[in-house]
């Protein structure tokens, strides 16, 4: 019987030659400061939420938006939330219908989760000029009643890239993408830049499960595990995934190789579906959809969208990294130094690989 699994790529090296982190500097404004203004009363609002595939329970941005609304209920007395689920491979008119249905039934604001709604929001929002729409992950501009909730995923990924580089014993890390879409490309880009910034000589494996258009890559943990195993076999010992449900496979491969993994979107250390692997999840790149949604509801309740951030980036903690499990506590100063440098604009993170 196999004990812990084979040490396919477990750490044996001495780590990277590390570049010195940027000088730490005073932190800039964070959202905590902004939200210090009193919370409005949202008891008049009825929010409509249109999910992307994956829906509730995806432990990713769908769930994060629910979390944001739950917090809004708790803290602002938000009256009602209506959620509608999407189906795999559905056609555009299903998305249109979903948004129209929410708008027609008087939900305001209507939040569309996922860039797949970009076209639908562009079509539906002008039809309902009195309803406010928000769309996650797509920068829809030029329609007065649409607010984009977009994130600087590359910045968050940069930080976990730094963390990976510091944690790697073999000076070799890996990125596993689910589907090769432009959005996932931002995660890859940031991670690579971060790892290189921290360790210029680092080797980086990069693989996707499927090419653009074949969304099975987000739903195939078995292939996720194989890709991860391939990277571990090649010598990588810290893997970062942006592969949706296939990430489970990545964690399990990392787990049996006793290497280290970095989660994505939410704090996966606390995620029940991957709880069995939590001891290898050293950190997660946080994409604070919950925060964006909460802030958005607050802004709507306040009836003031003018100061709403155009992008949720590091400077307002729209993205970040988690420290749950305490496995990277020693790296927090380093990561925060990079974070400050990015927030100050000293480090520019490109969003394409």
């Amino acid at each position, binding site marked *: 019987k196999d004990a812990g699994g084979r040490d396919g790529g477990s750490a044996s090296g001495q780590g990277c030659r590390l570049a010195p982190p940027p000088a730490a500097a005073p932190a800039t404004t964070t959202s905590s400061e902004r939200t210090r203004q009193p919370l409005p009363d949202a008891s008049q609002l009825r929010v409509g939420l249109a999910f992307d595939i994956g829906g509730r329970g995806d432990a990713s941005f769908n769930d994060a938006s629910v979390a944001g609304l739950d917090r809004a209920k708790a803290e602002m007395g938000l009256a009602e939330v209506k959620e509608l689920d999407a*189906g795999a491979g559905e*056609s555009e*008119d299903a998305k249109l219908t979903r948004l*129209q249905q929410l708008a027609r039934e008087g939900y305001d604001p209507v939040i569309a989760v996922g*860039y*797949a709604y*970009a076209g639908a929001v562009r079509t539906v929002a002008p039809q309902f000029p009195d309803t406010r729409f928000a769309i996650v992950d797509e920068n829809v501009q030029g329609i007065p009643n649409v607010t984009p909730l977009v994130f600087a995923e590359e910045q968050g990924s940069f930080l976990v890239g730094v963390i990976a580089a510091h944690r790697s014993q073999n000076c070799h890390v890996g990125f596993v993408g689910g589907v090769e879409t*432009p959005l996932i490309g931002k995660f890859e880009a940031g991670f690579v830049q971060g790892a290189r910034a921290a360790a210029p000589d680092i080797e980086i494996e990069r693989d996707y499960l499927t*090419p653009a258009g074949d969304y099975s890559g987000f739903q195939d943990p078995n292939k996720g595990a194989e890709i991860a195993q391939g990277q571990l076999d090649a010598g990588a010992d810290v893997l970062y995934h942006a592969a949706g449900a296939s990430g489970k496979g990545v964690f399990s491969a990392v787990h049996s190789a006793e290497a280290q993994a970095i989660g994505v979107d939410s704090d996966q250390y606390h995620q029940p579906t991957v709880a069995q692997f939590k001891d290898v999840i050293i950190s997660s790149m946080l994409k604070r959809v919950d925060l964006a949604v909460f802030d958005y509801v607050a802004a709507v309740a306040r009836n003031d969208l003018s100061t709403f951030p155009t992008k949720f980036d590091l400077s307002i903690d729209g993205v970040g990294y988690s420290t749950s499990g305490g496995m990277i506590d020693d790296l927090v100063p380093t990561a925060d130094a990079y974070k400050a440098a990015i927030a100050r604009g000293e480090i520019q993170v490109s969003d394409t690989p």
Partner: protein
Amino acid sequence: MNTWRARLLPPALAIVFSAVLCSAVLLFSGADPVATLAEMIGRVGRGGTAVDILNTAAAYYLVAIAAAIGFQMNLLNIGIEGQYRLAACVAAIVGGAISLPFGLHAVVVVVVGAATGALWCGIAALLKVYRGVSEVISTIMLNTLSIGVIAYLVQTFGELRGNTLGTAAIPPSGQVPGLSFGSAGTVFGLVLLSVAIGVGYALLRDRTRYGFDLRATGLSPTAARAGGVDSKKMVLTAMLLSGAIAGLAGLPEILGRDHTFTINFPTGYGFAGLAIALLGRNHPVGVAFGALLWSFLDKSSLTLDNIGVPKEIVIILQGTIVLSVVVAYELVRRRELAAEQRRVGRALATTGGDRA
């Protein structure tokens, strides 16, 4: 068996049986089947659902006709899924790259779509005719391969809009205007193309020599061969035709609404097409009803979220319908055949049959 009873009874039986089965499932899971059905039907009157049903039915009709052409010959074109998506992709790329006068532009796009579908299906046809590869397997493989080819094409010829990778937009000269019902939505102009294809298919099937050859080959390849039908040619042309019609299925949406092919282009029409063709017994009118039913189930299932019923019940319903419709056809066929033999026997006995 040309009686109306034999034609209409099986689908009716099948739908009733499936409805009963699904009601049982719903009851078991604690939902109210009557309310569920009422909600689904009520849904049709609301918002753009009626128009959506029509628009999607048009696409379903095309894929189902494509499947039906194959079925007529006992060819199983499982590759419709890949054909319509690849064709839509190539047509959108060409449509976005050329510039022609209004009307002609759209015609060229439609022709390109049909040609692409035919070519992709033609691979399977050639493999079958010259290498004896079962079209079932080759089209399944081609479906998966088409995903890669589409990804490659979109990456190579497409452009990034926000987070969505898509082909260049087709200019207004290539767009096909629809019939607007205001807030209830717009019926795609190319719905008419589906109607035309349906009429063409009906004529082809029942009134032309080619249609005769097609059906004869399907009924008995050996008899067709003795009757002078070239089966290789029939396999090839039927697959090409099937692929060409499949290639049209994505175009109503692209030319009528999206004007681009994105990586989010809908999937799953191909398998729906197979099921709908079975439901409609490959008959042009039957398939039309099948497409409308399927589309109705799809679109009105969106409302089930509202009343807390899992909308997967609709997939179960669809699967049950397909299975029970074929079983019902078989049962009715056996009964009718026996009845007809008895009838012939009686007729012969009275006209002085030569036996007993």
